[in-house]
């Protein structure tokens, strides 16, 4: 009994503490930013290159350049993807964050809803050269429609089909498939002798989302309705998810082992001639680092159901990319905007996008001959003509988790020989949708 009395005492003490702390909760995160510290900026960069150190080596000379021009010293921290969102969440909660930061463009609306990012109205955009400098599709991934963007596009990417020329030739296939039917037909020829036609990252939730989102578009389905409510279980969505998983379950052109891939192992398989195709964004530098020569692989648009890539149901890529945002309560507002201007200038866009293998979202920089490589040509065309932004809704990150997990589960089922039917797919998606908590 004494234990209980003691516990009761402890509970009383704790509730007293509650009274004192609950009032002091939250953080004094006033309104907009200030210019209290005009000499320094903290910048959180996302990991774009092969590793954190490589990113630092690429960015540091540019930041030095910026310092020379403006006298503003930029403190750089490159944050691994595994930590980035958590770091932003904690920074948001506490109000102690960087001045400028990179965000995955799919997070734009989610982060916009927190109010932690400075809205980019026309006046702010003017300071970086105006909205018109940026490619329209990239601007479509900067926040909820109808509100001022929460960020400015920094690097753009799109998905393309990378294929192994020799494996295609060996299987007697002339060129890359343009439709899914062709891909499956070619795939059956390619999948033999322990080699497989297509690579996938079955345990990588974001990658799963990117693929099924595009297939959803092709089946005329969006995962959110016009009011921003989740709608995962429409016939189109079910068909889209099923068609992706069926590449492993039914067509058997994806190796079952790929369902546990989450760390870009499929690129390693591709570079080692174990799989003939991958659907990826800007993979050239990775292939190179894995010892695959540039003339060994080719690149083509991601297949569509029929016809040629375009808008509507012929969308064949998400708008992938990185946006740059200014933290609402920065103490160097002018400097932060200046830094965004610097990073999105034609000159820096050329340098950085070439280094990271991405496409500049800035129109004038895109025209630079540095981006004339065939790979980037395909990506640029896709981005301009047949890419759609992921749903710009606050629930986007929940969507990635729930539906991404559903696809992962379905891949796991397919890999272990369980049947994947329309019903099982629907059941997974129903569960995913129910887990979306009401806001």
């Amino acid at each position, binding site marked *: 009994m004494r234990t209980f009395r003691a516990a009761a005492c*402890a509970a009383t003490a704790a509730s007293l503490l509650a009274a004192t702390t609950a009032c002091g909760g939250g953080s004094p995160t006033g309104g907009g930013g200030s210019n209290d510290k005009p000499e320094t900026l903290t910048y959180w960069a996302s990991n774009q290159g092969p590793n954190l150190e490589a990113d630092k080596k690429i960015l540091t000379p540019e930041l030095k350049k910026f310092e020379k021009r403006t006298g503003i010293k930029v403190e750089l921290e490159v944050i691994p993807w595994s930590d980035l969102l958590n770091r932003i969440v904690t920074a948001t909660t506490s109000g102690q964050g960087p001045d400028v930061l990179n965000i995955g463009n799919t997070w734009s609306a989610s982060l916009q809803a927190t109010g932690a990012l400075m809205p980019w109205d026309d006046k702010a955009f003017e300071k970086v050269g105006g909205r018109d400098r940026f490619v329209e599709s990239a601007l479509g991934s900067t926040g909820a429609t109808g509100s001022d963007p929460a960020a400015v596009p920094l690097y753009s990417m799109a998905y393309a089909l990378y294929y192994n020329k020799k494996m295609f030739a060996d299987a007697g296939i002339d060129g890359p498939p343009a439709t899914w039917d062709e891909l499956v037909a070619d795939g059956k020829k390619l999948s033999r002798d322990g080699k497989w036609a297509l690579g996938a990252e079955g345990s990588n939730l974001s990658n799963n989302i990117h693929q099924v989102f595009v297939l959803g578009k092709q089946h005329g389905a969006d995962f959110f309705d016009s009011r921003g409510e989740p709608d995962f279980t429409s016939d189109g969505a079910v068909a889209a998810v099923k068609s992706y998983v069926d590449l492993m379950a039914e067509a058997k052109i994806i190796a079952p082992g790929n369902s546990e891939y989450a760390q870009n192992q499929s690129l390693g398989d591709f570079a080692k001639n174990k799989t003939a195709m991958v659907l990826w964004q800007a993979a050239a530098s990775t292939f190179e680092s894995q010892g695959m020569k540039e003339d060994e692989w080719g690149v083509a648009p991601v297949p569509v159901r029929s016809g040629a890539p375009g808008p509507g149901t012929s969308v064949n890529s998400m708008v992938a990319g990185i946006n740059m945002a200014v933290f609402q309560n920065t103490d160097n507002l002018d400097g932060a905007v200046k830094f965004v201007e610097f990073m999105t200038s034609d000159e820096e866009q050329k340098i950085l996008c070439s280094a990271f293998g991405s496409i500049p979202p800035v129109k004038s920089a895109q025209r630079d001959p540095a981006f004339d490589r065939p790979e980037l040509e395909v990506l640029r065309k896709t981005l301009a003509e047949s890419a759609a932004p992921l749903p710009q809704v606050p629930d986007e990150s929940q969507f990635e988790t729930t539906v991404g997990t559903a696809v992962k589960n379905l891949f796991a089922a397919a890999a272990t020989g369980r049947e994947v039917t329309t019903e099982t797919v629907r059941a997974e998606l129903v569960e995913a949708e129910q887990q979306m908590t009401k806001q």
Partner: protein
Amino acid sequence: MPRSPMAAPRSFLWSRRVVLTLLTGFVLLPVYVMVSSSLKPLEDVSEKFRWLPSGLTIRPYIDIWDTVPLAKYFVNSLVVAGAATVCSVVVAVFAAYAVSRYRFRGKRVFTVTVLSTQMFPGILFLLPLFLLYVNIGNATGIALFGSRGGLVLTYLTFSLPFSIWMLVGYFESVPRDLDEAAMVDGCGPLGALFRVVVPAAVPGIVAVAVYAFMTAWGEVLFASVMTNDTTRTLAVGLQGYATQNDVYWNQIMAASLVVSVPVVAGFLLLQRYLVAGLTAGAVK
């Protein structure tokens, strides 16, 4: 030490041989994988598993320092875990001395509360703790969040409950006559603590120190949110080897070994104390 004058029967000896052999295999298997993989070229570790490397290379051990700033993380971990250990031991010694030698109002509440913190799910107080550190920082200018200090404070408190509890047990096994004798010689209560009780409790203190160090060295969740580029610890930094391009398993294994060797070596050197410390402390 011989337990009984009787010779053990054969069934006992045989089953002992079997069980201990199996256990040795179970324990050694991952250790072997770690060591052998760290000496393999990248092709070997990204292809089908093979027991013997196709060729030995020390390349991974050279490359690990460039792929991620391992040395920096190492120093951070060492500083954080070291400081947390020292502080934790000092604080625990004071608290345990009070609990073992004095009767005072609230003693039971104290012990129950401290021990019940072992039930707190880390997730529940990750965000609040972070908020608290930031608010303290805003109010006093003491940077807790993002600094090594904040992490030290956190880790030291994590190991505190178990440490106090273990030391209370140990101190109670130190005869009170010794304190008394010291007091007769003119020591105060704290003099008695430092001249008599602490020296007599060295094994217990070492056991507590080892536990505190390992708690701090291995923690992932709080480290991933509370550190930044300059203060990142090994637990978080090792993720850097699974890069955008490829998973460098040989480097991961080499780095894992490099970061494990100091703890394992230290642990094995001190293991005698550990058993002795637990014997008199926790398990009486």
